[in-house]
C-alpha cells in the first residue's frame, strides 16, 4: 500500500516537472507563439492550450501502452510531415541557430545574402536528417 502511494506520488510529481518544463520550453522559445500568430486567431488560446495538453497525454498513452490502430498507412506521410514541421520550427527557434546565422552573416560581411544563408541552413537540416535515417548503421 505504502509502496503504491510512494510510486504514485513520485510518478505524478515527475510528470508535473516534465510537462511543465516541456511546455515552458516551447513557450519561451516562441514556437507556440509563432503557430498561434500564424493561425491569426488569438481568441482561441484556450483551445490551443487544450490541444497541447491532449497531445502530451495521447503521446504518453501511445508510448507506454503498446497499442496499435493497424492499417492506417494513409496518415503516415502527413503525420510525419507535420511532426517534421514542428521539430523544424524548434530547430529554427533555438537561439543558437539564430545567433549563428546572424554572427556568420556579420563576420563575413554578407548581410545582404542572409536569406540565402537561411535557405542553405534549411537544406542542410533536411539533408542531414535524410542521411541520418536512410543510411543504415547511423543509429
Amino acid at each position, binding site marked *: 500500500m505504502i509502496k503504491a502511494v510512494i510510486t504514485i506520488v513520485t510518478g505524478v510529481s515527475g510528470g508535473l516537472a516534465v510537462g511543465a518544463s516541456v511546455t515552458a520550453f516551447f513557450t519561451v522559445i516562441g514556437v507556440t507563439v*509563432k503557430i498561434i500568430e500564424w493561425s491569426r486567431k488569438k481568441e482561441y488560446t484556450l483551445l490551443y492550450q487544450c490541444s497541447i495538453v491532449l497531445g502530451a497525454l495521447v503521446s504518453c498513452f501511445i508510448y507506454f501502452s503498446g497499442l496499435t*490502430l493497424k*492499417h492506417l498507412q494513409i496518415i*503516415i506521410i*502527413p*503525420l510525419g510531415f507535420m511532426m517534421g514541421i514542428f521539430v523544424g520550427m524548434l530547430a529554427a527557434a533555438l537561439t543558437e541557430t539564430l545567433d549563428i546565422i546572424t554572427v556568420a552573416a556579420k563576420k563575413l560581411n554578407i548581410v545582404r545574402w542572409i536569406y540565402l544563408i537561411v535557405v542553405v541552413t*534549411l537544406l542542410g537540416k533536411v539533408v*542531414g*536528417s535524410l*542521411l541520418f535515417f536512410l543510411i543504415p548503421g547511423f543509429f
Partner: protein
Amino acid sequence: MDNPEVYFQFKPFYKKYTGEKALLGDFIELAGPENLKEKIECIIVFPNGINTQVRLTAVQIVQLIQQEVPGIAVIPIGESSALYEPKQRSKENPVLLFLRVAFSMVLLFIGAALAIMYFHSDVDMNKAHQIIYYFITGEKVDNPVLFTVSYSLGIGMGIAIFLDIFAKMKNKENPGPLELEMHQSEKELREYLRDQEGKKQN
C-alpha cells in the same frame, strides 16, 4: 521678448559617406521656429566630413548651437549622446565576396546537417518513430522510411515557416525573427561602442 527655444534629438543613423561635409542637420532633428531651424541645421560640424566613428554629446550640440545663435534655449530630448559612423564607399572584390558567401554556405550546410543528426541520436528519435509507426500501422519496422522521409521534409518546411521565408518572398516590409535578432545585436554593438568611446574621452 522671450528667448527662442529649440528642441533637438539625435538621429539614429548618419547617412553621408566619408569625406562629405557634415552639417549639424545630419546628426540631429530639430523642433522650433522655422527660420532658426534652417540656420542651425546648416551649422558645419566637420568641414572635412568624418572618417571614423564619432561620438557626439548633447552638451557639445548645445554649445555649438549657442555659439551660432546667442541667447537661444536648447533643450535635448532623449539620449544624451550618440555614436555615428560614416558610410564606406565600398569597392568590393566580387571574387572575394563570392568566396565568402560560398564558404559560409558550405559551413552552414554541413553544420546544420551535423547538428540535426546530433539531435536525432541524442533524443533517440528512431525509437520514437518506430513506436509511432507501430501505433498507426501495426507493423514493427526497423526503419519506417515513409515516415522518416516525410518527417525530414517537414523539418525544412518548419524552418521556412518559422523564419518567414514565404512571407519574405511576397513582401519585404515585415521583419522576421532573423531581422529582429540582427537588429538587436547591431544595437548592442552600437551601444557598447558609444559607451566605450565616452570612457575614452573623459
